[in-house]
């Protein structure tokens, strides 16, 4: 009896409350669509969705009202490119890292969704820091194709996947050259060959399912786009002239058909132009450029292509020979040229520190005051870490903005969220208020006071 009660209590603590109708009032609200913050505004959420946000929004009868005077409210941060949930500890901890498979036989077919563990500390830490969704990419091993990434939420539940197989990820810069055996030209011929092999399989593809795998959770339903291309007729004979396994080739069918975005990591200006060329050659495919440290040099051409860019925010070092022209003004200049640009954590401890995106966004705002530099406005900066990355991978209108009908991922901040001195007071994911405790907060409690007591620290709560 006592034991059962204890279990129930634990569950109560561990599981978030159900979605409810909530009105957050008197807040400074950032919508996440690029607009400036709105003072004295109200945000209403119901049944896990945003109902309304702005000034003069009525508080529904029966809503739980949260007075957010002096606070700021925004959509939760959407980590634009991350490896969140794939790793607990990066180094020296076997079994705690599913970012890639050095010894595995597959590449494009890899679907990272089964690798996501919502109980990993980085998920909790980022949740407590206001990151509510993440675009999660696999890492390449011995092929230019890394596999299929997912969009996840960071909620304190066991259903982290917002959208599995949301995109394919390929390396076509220096890493791609290495993955391809040593040169960019090698990477490009591997790329073309892979698309050829996928093309061969396309005619064997079954009908495209509109519903896909069944999801038990109703709130996930509108996001279904399974890109399920692994089921083929047994008679789908392939030519003998193949490099990819059947699974890998099949996984590229939805990419070829434009049903699944292809995230391409390139940094160098000339590599970016190569991708624009590919986009002209394969007009059905949906390219998204990741990285683009030298993007400012060819910003007008990227803008003309309409290809979205998920960029590193503040790269300003010639850290490699593909980043020689790096400057913190890169994002601002691309934005000014009309590129649809957002921010990601590209090879930047993206399995742990995705919450740095809001600091980075604040730093882009700071550039507005530096002579000769190009920054972005506060509203644009917020959009780059909320709605813009969602749009880049085809989830625009679903996450990233406090707009009617979007997922109610809402953060109440102690102050301006683009300041590192601010922190989340409350975090909601799909309208559900989230616990903000983690390994770190528990350690703080244990070691806040050091003097010896009647029992060792291991007995402290």
């Amino acid at each position: 009896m006592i034991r059962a009660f204890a279990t129930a209590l634990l569950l109560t603590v561990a599981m978030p409350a159900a979605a409810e109708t909530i009105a957050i009032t008197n807040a400074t609200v950032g919508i996440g669509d690029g607009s400036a913050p709105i003072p004295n505004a109200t945000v209403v959420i119901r049944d896990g969705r945003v109902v309304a946000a702005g000034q003069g929004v009525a508080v529904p009868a029966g809503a739980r009202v949260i007075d957010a005077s002096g606070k700021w409210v925004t959509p939760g941060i959407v980590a634009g490119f991350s490896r969140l949930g794939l790793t607990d500890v990066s180094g020296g901890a076997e079994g705690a890292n599913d970012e890639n498979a050095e010894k595995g036989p597959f590449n494009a077919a890899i679907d990272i969704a089964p690798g996501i563990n919502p109980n990993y500390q980085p998920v909790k830490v980022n949740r407590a820091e206001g990151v509510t969704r993440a675009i999660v990419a696999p890492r390449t091993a011995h092929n230019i194709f890394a596999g299929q990434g997912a969009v996840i939420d960071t909620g304190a539940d066991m259903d982290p996947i917002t959208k599995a197989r949301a995109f394919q990820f390929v390396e076509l810069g220096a890493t791609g050259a290495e993955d391809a055996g040593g040169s960019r030209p090698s990477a490009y011929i591997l790329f073309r060959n892979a698309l050829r092999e996928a093309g061969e399989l396309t005619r064997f593809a079954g009908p495209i399912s509109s519903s896909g795998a069944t999801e038990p959770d109703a709130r996930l339903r509108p996001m279904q786009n399974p890109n399920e291309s692994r089921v083929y007729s047994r008679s789908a004979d392939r030519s003998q002239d193949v490099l990819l396994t059947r699974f890998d080739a099949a996984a590229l069918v939805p990419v070829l058909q434009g049903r699944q975005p292809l995230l391409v990591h390139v940094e160098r200006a000339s590599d970016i132009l190569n991708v624009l060329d590919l986009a002209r050659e394969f007009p059905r495919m949906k390219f998204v450029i990741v990285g683009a440290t030298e993007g400012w040099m060819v910003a007008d051409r990227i803008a003309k292509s309409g290809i979205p860019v998920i960029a590193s925010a503040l790269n300003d070092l010639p850290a490699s020979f593909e980043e020689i022209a790096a400057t913190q003004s890169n994002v601002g200049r691309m934005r000014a040229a009309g590129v649809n640009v957002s921010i990601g954590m590209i090879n930047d401890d993206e399995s742990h520190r995705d919450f740095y995106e809001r600091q980075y966004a604040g730093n882009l705002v700071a550039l507005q005051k530096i002579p000769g530099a190009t920054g972005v406005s506060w509203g644009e900066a917020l959009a780059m870490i909320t709605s813009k990355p969602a749009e880049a991978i085809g989830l625009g209108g679903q996450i990233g903005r406090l707009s009617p009908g979007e997922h109610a991922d809402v953060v109440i901040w102690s102050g301006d969220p683009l300041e590192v001195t601010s922190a989340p007071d409350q975090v909601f994911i799909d309208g559900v208020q989230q616990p903000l405790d983690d390994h770190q907060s528990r350690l703080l409690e244990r070691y806040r006071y050091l003097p010896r007591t009647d029992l060792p620290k291991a007995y402290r709560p």
Partner: protein
Amino acid sequence: MIRLAAIAAVTAALLSGCAALESTPAPAPAVRINEDPYPSTYVRYPGVPTVIRHATVFTGDGQQINDGTVVFANGVIQAVGGAALPSPAGALEIDGTGKFVSPGVIDIHSHLGVYPSPGVEANSDGNELTDPIHADVWAEHSVWPQDPGFSRALVNGGVTTLQILPGSGDLMGGRTVVLKNVPGRTVQEMKFPGAPYGLKMACGENPKRVFGSKGKMPQTRMGNMALDRETWVKAVAYKRKWDDYYAHGGKMPDRDLTMDTLKGVLEGKILIQNHCYRADEMANMIDMSKEFGYHITAFHHAVEAYKIADLLRDNNICAVMWADWYGFKMEAYDAIPQNIALVHNAGACAMVHSDDPNGIQRLNQAAAKAMAYGQRAGIPNLSEAVAWEWLSRNPAKALGILDKTGTLTAGKEADVVLWNGDPFSDYSRPERVWIDGAEMYDANDPHKRPVSDFELGQPGEGDVK
């Protein structure tokens, strides 16, 4: 009888010894080890007498002066105070209204120059991973002065002084070097005059991984300790030989570069800068220092310093920390973002560091985070002025140069940053930076911006970075 004879013999020997002393004193040792064979050739660049008025001033030692005035001339801070401070004749007057003035930021843990940009194998010179004991190597002999990272640290981070360390793959990774962040053709032109050397030591995962994977000792943490202790045993003996030689002459002992460095540590001339994450390992290192008679100046990457802040305080050891890095390796699993504030609150010496060519550009924001985490945890008396101690005063202390820089104090070197807003805000950046009173950066003057040789003729040369 035999006994008497023996006494007689000893007496005779003593007498003859005395006689010898009286007639011909022991010869002075023919050779003394040159302890500064690669001396600094840094010379401060010219400046003009400068007065910054109406700024919010963080002095670096916990004080904030509103509507403050900072006066410097001849490379030296002349006066720091309120609005009433007089100006020297002919001084350049800068209106700091709405702006902030601080000491130059000091990064006590950087690998600029030894792991420079571009990060290619040919320039990767930070870890001599051929033996776990390499106190013989000196980071300054790897520093590439043309690393573009130095300029980014200056213009975006307001970093005026930095310590370059060897990496942490070895138990004893080599000597560190303290640099002025002033571009030089040679590393000697950058060396901070009068700064003591440090010895980089490392606990934990890195040495045991690097050498264990080669089938060599150390393969375990106990192996780390044993090899360190064996080395200190040798160092104590080496020092005794040289002490004896210096005192009494005789045959000069053989030189050993590793032992020279360790002798310097035992003499208190070279400071121990000890990479060490875990609380239990720091405690072991402290006991080892007592076993052999040296002092640990600072634990770097001390992510578990908060667990033993009292021990660090009582042993007068500084903790060098990130604001919020965590989980990137097993020994960083217990990192918490309140670490810096907790260590500070316990009365120990706390500071931020970067260990990173990007992080060094935003150390002020790291301090801002650490302050805010501490404030939210209810730790008292954490103002911005106090938090600035983590950015310049405490690093200067742990580098042995607090008498020269680290605070805005009359008589110290004029390492000064004028920020275009509150440096604890993401929206603020350095506007002007002076090192020894010479203006090395001015955001409003595209010519007051260092461009390394590597960047010449490249896309983006001279661009705002």
